[in-house]
Structures are given as structure tokens and as C-alpha cells.
């Protein structure tokens, strides 16, 4: 089963839920940290990294000796990654979406393949837990291609936990796509609720069942719960604002290790999802 942990708003506790859930489930579990812009799960899991790959994406390189500056490549490119100046084709690799249109259309076979580095993917283990994450290169704008690489690292494990990026646009969609279930982590504040509603819409466009974890459940008001009730959405867990949890988090310690009674609560949450009772 593939479970994504997402939220519209940032900083609600996605990584807290993903890491503590993964650690509570025991063996045959792999965590994929798909928040490639700001990956944080490794700070809590302290995995031993066994393998690292530089990941890149295809971009065109012009073989000038063959190019006749016919402009066909610049015309097919919707992303303005190619432009013709005089008799020369200029390539802006950072704008390229690797669609390969220029390669297909060039009548002179004047386009060769180059690469734009996207970042790195690292594989490791933290005790029994399998771990993969991606780190977007500083200055790289496009996160989804790297997210898709991390997302593809499913290797027959029984359970995959995906730590998704915040928001409701293409990066989080790339992370959640193909999941069996989405846990949405929120907090009971106006910002939390507003962004939760957007996140629920995003999950629904993908037709994936979802449930809520309310973090810092006692800091705000009841509007998140009222919303969940109206929408018939299960509340899988409430985590109170507890200085011990906040301190464990601030130092990089998964709180199930400091407060082991939570391990059973996370296993119960998993059983509820697995039983399929909590689908909408």
C-alpha cells in the first residue's frame, strides 16, 4: 500500500506524521521523501546513505555544423527554450521541459542530447526502514521531474510512505499520484482550514481516498472538525500541542521514540486505513 502524507499549508507536520508512522510500522516499509525542495525526513531518521545518484533531464544541444537555422525547433518549442538569432540557434536549457519536440521536428538531425542537472537522489536505511529522498539543485526551478524519479523508487515493499511537498500545484500532484491513500495533515486555524480545503480538492482530482490528522489539535478553533464532519472525512488522529513533542521535533527526534505510547496509535491509524473503512 502506498500512503502519501500531504497538506496544503506548509509546516503543519507532514514530516512528523510521515516519519513517526514509518518508524511505528516496523519492517518492509520504505519512506520516500518527495519534498525535494526542502527535504527534512532524513533529519529525523538519520539514515545511513548507501547510494547516491546525480539526476539530470534531457535538454537539446545544437550540432552547429548540421544546423541550417530553419527555425522549426524554435517554432515547436512552447517553452521558448530555443530561439534563432541570425543563423544561430540559441538554447536556454533552464526553460526546457524535455518534451523532445525539437529533436522530432529537426529535418537536419542537428539536435543532440545534453543534460541539465536536476539534483540528487539518495538511497539508504534507517534501521529496518528503507529510505529514499531527492534534493533539488539550488537554482533549479522544476521540481516535478525529480519528484517523479524519487516517486518511482518503489521496490516491492509492503508499505510505502510518501512525504509530499506543501501546496496544491504540480509538485504535490507529482508526489501523490498513484497513491492508495492520502493522509492530510492540518492544524485547527483559519490558515490550516483554508489550505486544507484546497488540498482536499487536489486529492479529489486524483480520485484518491483521504483522511485527516489534526496536529496541534488544541491551539485553535473547531472549524476544521466541523468541515471534516460536513465532508464526511475521517479524522484519523489528533496530536495535541505538547511542549515535549515540539522540543523533540526541534532537536530532530521522532516523538514516537521519546513517547513510545504513540507507536501503537500510529499502528492503529495504519490499520484503519488498511481496513478500507476510512475511505470516503
Amino acid at each position, binding site marked *: 500500500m502506498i500512503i502519501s502524507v500531504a497538506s496544503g499549508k506548509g509546516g*503543519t507536520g507532514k514530516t512528523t506524521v510521515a516519519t513517526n508512522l514509518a518508524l511505528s510500522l516496523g519492517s518492509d516499509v520504505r519512506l520516500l521523501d518527495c519534498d525535494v525542495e526542502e527535504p527534512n525526513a532524513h533529519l529525523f531518521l538519520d539514515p545511513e546513505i548507501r547510494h547516491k545518484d546525480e539526476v539530470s533531464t534531457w535538454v537539446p544541444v545544437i550540432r552547429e555544423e548540421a544546423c541550417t537555422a530553419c527555425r522549426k525547433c524554435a517554432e515547436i518549442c512552447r517553452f521558448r527554450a530555443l530561439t534563432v538569432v541570425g543563423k544561430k540557434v540559441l538554447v536556454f536549457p533552464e526553460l526546457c521541459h524535455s*518534451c*523532445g519536440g525539437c529533436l522530432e521536428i529537426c529535418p537536419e538531425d542537428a539536435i543532440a542530447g545534453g543534460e541539465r542537472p536536476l539534483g540528487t537522489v539518495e538511497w539508504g536505511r534507517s534501521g529496518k526502514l528503507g529510505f529514499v529522498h531527492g534534493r533539488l539543485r539550488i537554482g533549479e526551478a522544476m521540481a516535478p521531474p525529480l519528484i517523479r524519479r524519487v516517486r518511482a523508487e518503489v521496490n516491492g515493499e509492503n508499505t510505502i510512505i510518501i512525504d509530499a511537498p506543501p*501546496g496544491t*500545484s504540480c*509538485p504535490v500532484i507529482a508526489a501523490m499520484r498513484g497513491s492508495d491513500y492520502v493522509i492530510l495533515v492540518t492544524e485547527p486555524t483559519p490558515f490550516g482550514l483554508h489550505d486544507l480545503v484546497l488540498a482536499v480538492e487536489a486529492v479529489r482530482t486524483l480520485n484518491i481516498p483521504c483522511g485527516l490528522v489534526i496536529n496541534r489539535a488544541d491551539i485553535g478553533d473547531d472549524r476544521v472538525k466541523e468541515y471534516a464532519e460536513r465532508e464526511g472525512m475521517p479524522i484519523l488522529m489528533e496530536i495535541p500541542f505538547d511542549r515535549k513533542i515540539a522540543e523533540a521535533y526541534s532537536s530532530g527526534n521522532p516523538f514516537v521514540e521519546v513517547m513510545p505510547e504513540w507507536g501503537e496509535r500510529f499502528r492503529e491509524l495504519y490499520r484503519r486505513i488498511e481496513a478500507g473503512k476510512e475511505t470516503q
Partner: protein
Amino acid sequence: MKRELVIISGKGGTGKTSITAAFASFASNAILCDADVDAADLHLLMQPEIKKTTDFIGGSKAIIRNQDCSECGRCRDLCRFDAISKDYVVDPIACEGCGVCVDLCPEQAIDFPVQKCGEWFISDTRFGPMVHARLGIAEENSGKLVSQVRKESGKLAEEKGIDLILTDGPPGIGCPVIAAIGGATALLIVVEPTVSGLHDLQRVADLAAHFKVPGMVCINKFDLNEEMTAKIETMCVTRRMTHVGRIPFDPTVTRAMIEGKNVVEFAPLADASRAIREVWKSVLASPAMNTLGIKDFSTTIQ
């Protein structure tokens, strides 16, 4: 001289929007710009009265006209995004909008209509004009919409003779953040004293250094982990980021949010309000925010 302060954080949920909104109480004449178009929240504290709504046209998506399709399979071979199903239906979420299938379909059976990907607004608030936007769910092109709201804020500032723009930025370091910080006068990076906060601050500082934008740092909820606060302050010195203050953990901020207000107007004497006032003074007094428009390269992040 027009100046734009962009408030960012790397990590989400550190208090960008609460602090931006509180700054609006101190700035006597500023434009508010919400550049977090993906999960915009500033309007929840500003209750903007929308004056003008404009559609945001982001890109196009391929649609196969099945009556004209010969099912030759060319589009499925060409598509690098696996967006076309075996029965020749384009998945609009997977479609990248590259149009390669549209141009190369032998039957010319694929349409490519432009898509409305969101809306942007010019509004009035009790603190002055505001430019904000809403990106459609599951849409792309958030960077393009961020650029649009910043451009409109700049235009509005010129029209109204306002010389300060307060921009609430998005989290992360990818496309929307790059679009939010390019050409900014200075950044205020809001960080929490946690291992994640420190890690993400380093990444966003790397990004700011890459684009040569000066940056300041304020530590929110500094008292949750004073040891980590000290570590972050040391890092600010080594990386040449002006440290402009500490804000204590204060539940008043959440109470104000529930009332739809910023913390300064809700409780001007609360601990957080006093601290934010000091941060605001330090930001305005920083060399990077000078009113003469002098680019001070000694303030660039290392």
C-alpha cells in the same frame, strides 16, 4: 525609490504570512502582494475588497478529437509525460502542455486550447492596496502567476506613488520562489529554531546567494529551542545575513488569526507584537533597504 521586501522561509509554516500582515500595520504607505499563489492565506487577515479580477491564462492542454483520430499511436510514442491513454484520451493533469503531439499528429486530430489556470486580483484593504491571486487546483505555471502579481504590484506602486511593496512569498526553493525573489530589494527569511528550520534556511540562503539578493533573518518562536536559535544566529554571521530579531512563541498570534486580524492590531502590547515592531524597525534601518536605491553588495549573502 521603490523598494520591495519579500518575506520567505524555505520551510513552510514558519510565520511568513502572520509577520507580513503585522508589518502592514506599521507601514504607513505600502502595497501588499501575496506571492504564495498556491496556498494563499494573506487575504484571510486582510479581508480584501476585490476591485478588479483578471483571468490568468497559463498554458494549453492537448485534447484528442476522437472522431478524427486514426489511433495510429504516434502521439503516444511522442509523449514523454505518459499523458495519453491506450484509448487515446489525454490526462489533463499529466499533460505538460508541450504541444508536440498537436503539431506532429498525422491526422491533425488534436486540439490545444488555452487554459485558464487561475485568477489575480487588485483589491483594497484597511491597510492599503493589495495584489493577490488564486492558482487553480493541480495547476502548473505557479512561477508565471507569481511573476504576474509582482509585476502588477510594481505597476500599482508607480501609479499610486507608493514606494514600498511587502510581498508574502511561497515556501520552498523551486519555481515559485525563484519567481518571487528575482529583482527583490531584500528578503526577510523567517525561520523557526528547529533542525528542519536550520536545514531549510541554508537551502534558501543558497538560493538567495545564487541570485545575489540581500537577505535578513528573523527567528520566530525563538524560545522553543534557544540552543538552536543560537546556532542559527551564528550561521547568519558567517553567511552575512543581517539578523533582525527574535519573536517569542505567543498564542496571541493564533487568537488574532481566528479573529481575522494581524497580531499587532489585535493585541498591540502582546509579546509577539512588540517583537515584530523591533524586527520591522531593524528591517527598515538595514543597509539593503536604503531609500536611495543604492545596491549595497556588502549585504549579499555568502
